[in-house]
């Protein structure tokens, strides 16, 4: 004789790290393109670099020091996370950014949105400050240089 006995679980909702939230990450991407891309354009690695820098105060200081030391300080490794790629896909589908020849570009709709974020003085206060400070001082060439160091390591 078989008794059907069940154990039931109630699925609890979990708190989620804010970097894994779509609109948050998409807004961050738009801000990076807006402040740090040449003509609103940036490579995937550049986006990863800045996204990593915005993750913590320590990271952003490392990047700042790297720039202010005229690229002499060590910046050995920055993290890469798959959630950024997923956020990029969403932003692309939403027609906020375009993807062409390995670069992401800010589209008009994205630009309008990021300008709204920029005007709102209560949003992304520290992030905007960091991104503005670094500005366009990290050209793709430098990033590629960093990558080749990884390969040789």
């Amino acid at each position: 004789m078989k008794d059907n006995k069940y154990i039931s679980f109630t699925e609890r909702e979990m708190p989620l790290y804010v970097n894994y939230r779509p609109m948050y990450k998409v807004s961050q991407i738009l801000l990076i393109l807006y402040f740090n891309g040449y003509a609103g354009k940036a490579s995937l690695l550049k986006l990863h670099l800045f996204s990593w820098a915005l993750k913590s105060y320590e990271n952003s200081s490392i990047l700042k020091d790297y720039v202010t030391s005229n690229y002499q300080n060590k910046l050995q490794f920055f993290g890469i996370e798959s959630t950024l790629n997923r956020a990029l896909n969403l932003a692309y589908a939403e027609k906020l950014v375009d993807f062409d020849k390995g670069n992401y570009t800010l589209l008009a709709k994205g630009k309008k949105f990021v300008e709204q974020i920029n005007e709102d003085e209560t949003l992304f206060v520290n992030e905007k400050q960091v991104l503005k400070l670094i500005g366009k001082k990290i050209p793709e060439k430098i990033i590629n240089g960093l990558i080749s160091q990884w390969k040789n390591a």
Partner: protein
Amino acid sequence: MLKIRALQITINTDKGIYGTPLLRFSDSLTIVKGFNSTGKSTLFQSILYGLGLEELIGGKNEKTMQSVLKSEILDNQNKIEANVIESNILLEIEGTSVVTVKRYISSETKNSGLVEVFNGKLLTEPKQYDYVPMYVHDKGAADSKNAFGFHSFLEKLIGWELPQVQYKDGSYRKLYLQNIFPSFVIEQKAGWTDFLATIPYYSLLDKETRALEFLLNLDSWKIQQRKSKLKQDKNDLIFDWRNKFNEFKSLANQIACEIRGVNNQPEIINSINSVYLVYLTEERTYNISEYINVLEEEYEELLELEVPNVGDQAEESEIRINKLNEQLSNYSINLSSTINRKNLAISKYKSFKERLIELENDKVQNEYHLKVKKKGAEEGFAIAHDNCPYCSQGLNDSLLPKDIEIVPMQIEENLEYIKAQINLIKIYMSNHQNDISDLEQNIEKLNFKISETRSNIRTLKTQLTSDNRLPSIELIEKRLKLKARLDLYRRKYEELASFQEAFKSLSDEWVQILSEEKKLPKSLSKFDYKKISELETIFKQLLRKFHYRSKPIDSISISRDTLLPVVDRYSLKFDSSASDFTRAIWSYTIALKETSERFEGNHPKLFILDEPGQQEAGDNDLQFLLKRLGNYEETQSIVFSSFHQSETTFDACTKDVDFELIDLGEEKFIKKI
């Protein structure tokens, strides 16, 4: 009060001087009549420009003005007749005194952000008056370093004292003039689309309501201010209380006592005697005055003892030294373990603090997310609605891959979760802080005991090595020490009274603040309600007289929250036909003034209305409006209208109306002089 006494426009062109003659306005109703494109709007806008209020037309400085004042003058066939070189407006106004304002629209040398204020009736009684340069909108616009703000000058001239109001960023700043004028200066394009439609955007919370509160001089903003004042007082008192408590605590520490009946937060103290100090021993707890008695008795006993010789005491002294040494090492062990515990607590406290900073950062970032998600939703982004833009399936508000099967919290809930954690950490931190300060107190006590024991041992040892025939210094020293101790406690006991009084009086203040807080009405005072129901009565009477039909008038009321007319909590706008809505704006505009007048509010008793006969509101009704305006004794009205370019309409509308006419005629009013 504010009156527009006279206006004159002067335009220098390559073909000579153009402009208007001197236009005087009556103290009561002035009608400015003219065919389309004769220059009515130019005059209306010039008045606003002269007051530095061109933001009501939708912009700052000269760009809001018509091209006749800044680029070219057209003839009646709309061909360019002359090119503008420099143009300015002179506006004579009266408030607490009469001044004349000169402002340039187009000029090579004078900035349009600058006005010159002449101290007198430059237009109606021309003379050489002294003038002061002032700036509008932007301090940088003024050439002179000492320029005044024109609007704060105008505020004083009208006799207003504008309140501080809360802006969306939480700061308190002055209410702007631009925020108030749209309730009695109504422009023809946007002005008739809503109540107070032309208030510029200043990220002010409930901007219409703030203007209305001010005009009616409601207590509600005073209540708001009173509330924030009380909050400030409360914080000050908490601060004073804490300081006093810390002083008290250091007094208690000096005499190794503990505080009873009061702690570091303000509370209600009913009697002075409920604040006191206690001295704890292992056996029992003494009230400080009891303890002083004990010391006194002990001292008395010691005085009665005969001082023995050193030799008699030698053996006993040795035993005592051993005992004291044992005690000393106990104390030392105790001390080092207490210090360890304190250090542990401090390091825990520090790690909590770090965690708190992280959590607060998390909270800010989650708030960002919530905000951009809302903004995105307004823009119609699919991701902001938790939909995938590719497959239209749910996104769960997460970037994690689908095969990680967790259900994330909704962002609002996530925020609450973080806030709850922050609160928890704060509680931990405050507990640890208390522990740390308790431990510190213990350390101090132990240190005191250790040094006391050491000194006792020293005394006994000295005694053992001295001559046997000498009197024992131990007892003498014990006496001296006890005397010193007794004196200290007596002195501190005297100080206690002043603390008791201080806490009592702080507590009385505290009670006062709390009861005042209780007494404050929620937002409107009784008097406010009276004013609002008066406003409602007048408004509804006027609606009837203007033949408002879109809704039964009994269903209309003035919202106690927004002070605007509503039907079933919705704006009247949605339920009224276009012409009826114009009537509603007339009624509301007039009702505001009459209510303010009845209760001595802040209405400046001025109306400037541009084409009130919008949306075919009807000649009869317009006639009724003009008549009402014309009948006011102490209120100036300036009405601009084309009267459908028909004399018949004009006659019908002004029948039985008292007014003075400025007729611009059928052709361009700005002509070569």
